[in-house]
């Protein structure tokens, strides 16, 4: 029980009339890597955006690290600081250099001294291998470099959980690998990760579990090997046959 860092119970969410999430139940244990896949419009992104409350759910409970997310949550910033997120469109701050992108939140949210924050940022930039670009601006980097910087930026907050929202979908094919490598390294270091992606190779390599979503519901949830070897539902079989 105490090992479950994220608990999602009976979550429903509507965009107007349209129901995006239907009765989602999901528990994630510490240090587990979970890959969420499914066709577009199936609510994968909405689900993980609900986990750090970038979207609000209307029904059900989402508990992150013992704190329930609701309208009354006072310290939503504190919870968000513990949940790192990487976006499809990178969303780096274009007016700040790469280094400043990484140090901004540690300095102003965690009140870290500037020197320490810079050391920490350089350490993480080193890990994703763009330390030599630290003084450039995001506009001067390639897509893959920007996405790796976004990963480093999230890591600088030293989060307990990392959410990836289709991190490689906006990238050229040859840049996908460098981002995936960074993510694989992160997974091997023991981070709790929820990854929305279409990269099945990545799923096979690092995921503990794979979740297949369609039309706002979790259709199938299984151990990675099991998921690829003998998927149970027909919808999953169809999806896998198309994507592999």
């Amino acid at each position, binding site marked *: 029980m105490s090992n479950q860092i994220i608990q999602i119970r009976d979550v429903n969410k509507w965009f107007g009339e349209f129901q995006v999430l239907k009765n989602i139940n999901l528990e994630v244990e510490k240090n587990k890597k979970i890959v969420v896949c499914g066709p577009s419009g199936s609510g994968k992104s909405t689900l993980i955006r609900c986990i750090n409350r970038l979207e609000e759910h209307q029904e059900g409970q989402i508990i992150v690290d013992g704190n329930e997310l609701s309208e009354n949550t006072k310290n939503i910033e504190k919870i968000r600081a513990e949940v790192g997120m990487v976006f499809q469109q990178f969303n780096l701050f274009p007016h700040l250099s790469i280094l400043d992108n990484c140090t901004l939140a540690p300095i102003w949210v965690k009140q870290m001294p500037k020197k320490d924050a810079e050391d920490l940022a350089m350490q993480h930039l080193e890990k994703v291998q763009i330390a030599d670009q630290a003084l450039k601006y995001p*506009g001067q980097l390639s897509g893959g470099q920007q996405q790796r910087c976004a990963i480093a930026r*999230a890591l600088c907050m030293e989060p307990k959980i990392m959410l990836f929202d289709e991190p490689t979908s906006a990238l050229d094919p040859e840049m996908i690998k460098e981002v995936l490598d960074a993510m694989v390294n992160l997974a091997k270091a023991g981070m709790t990760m929820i990854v929305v992606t279409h990269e099945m190779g990545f799923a096979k390599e690092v995921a503990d579990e794979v979740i297949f979503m369609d039309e706002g519901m979790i259709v199938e949830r299984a151990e990675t090997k099991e998921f690829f070897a003998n998927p149970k539902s027909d919808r999953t079989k169809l999806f896998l046959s198309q994507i592999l």
Partner: protein
Amino acid sequence: MKFVNITKDNFNNYLYSGIFLIFISILDVFLNSFFSINATSFLPEFLSFVLPLIIGFIGLYFIRVEHSGIKNLDIINKNINTNNFNAILTLLIIFVIIKSLPPFLSWFIIDANIAGDSKEACTGTGACWTYIKIWLRRFIYGMYPNAEQWRINLSFISLTALGLVGFFATEKYKKYLTLYYVVIYPFISFLFIYFFISGGRIFFDFSYGIIAAAISIILGFFIPNKFKLYYFLIVPITFYILLKYVFFFEEYIELGMIEGLVWVETGAWGGLSLTFIISFFCLIFCFPIGMALALGRRSDFPLIRYICIGFIEFWRGVPLITVLFMSSVMFPMFLPQDVYVDKLVRCIIAISLFEAAYVAEVIRGGLQALPRGQYDAAKSLGMGYWKMHIFVILPQALKLVIPGIANTFLALVKDTPLIFVVGLLEIVGMLNLAKTNPEWLGFAMEGYVFAAIIFWIICYAMSKYSYNLEIKYKTER
């Protein structure tokens, strides 16, 4: 269909004859315009009039050769001589410029007068710059007493000096200097120009307060962060008490041992200095107010949002001249009997609020241009509303709207002459006053040209500065 066949062999002949014809045509217009010589007077009047155009046109036709290999010729052909129509337009523009130069120059310089010190000195047909020269002091300082004008000078000189120091300072101190420049200095100099330790009890207290605040803020830079809170709780009040009860300026002045500065009422301020004072204060006030309104208009709280919308739409809906009139005539009626807000201060507040509404809408445009991902990213890093806006959203939004803000600020500077409706006379007001002086009737033209030049210089400087800012904050590749 080709009238002339230009080939590689005869290309040079056409080129030289073309240049010669163009030269002849321009020379003809030039002689006609500057020396009133009509070299073609033997021809019928109409033909003589259009002859330069015809000759120049033929000349341009001759030199219109594609890929001639001569760089300058190619540039000319590409830009101003692409076809017959463009050739005629080019010639016409050149001729109009040549034609209009002599009257312009003669009014401005050749026939103008600047010597002497009365209207009689202006004998020429051109401009009477004597008028500007004699009235210059009034145009710059308004009705401010001559003996006290050094206060205005000193204020503006130190403002410039401060700006220069800020320009050369390192990034670390630049922040503090800018803060000082816009938050503290204007008020000190306003006080300095207005009254300073003089003019009665309440003015004394006010002066002490400002001095105490200024000194303690300057010293505050050198206090370590840990003690800053205690420092600012204790020191300014201590300074104030010291000034009020220990140094006894009041009594010294009453005893005549030292002299305070003479109280110059704001009605006597005027001229260019008033233009600067009003513009400067309105700029520094309307910007933060506008920013707050822009954020408020996008707030999630309906009450704040509707207040901001109402405020913006109200101020955008009324003309500035009415606002100023209301501020001077109606506003005092709503105040209690013994409360008095100075006329100039009321004006500055009115213009600031008026322009803030415009600034707010400009900034809102910038806020809306930002992609939602920037908000998401800032939130996902754990930033709250204020941190997100201060560090992520506003820097980007403001960068986007630099041209729009510059536009609004230029409009603000050019709106300042409207304060004549409340009886304050800045430079244009002073011109109007001077031109109705019985001894100097009939020099409106000079005055307005002078004002136009001054305003153009101010506005051009501002727009140049805004371009510089744009380049400075450009972080794209």
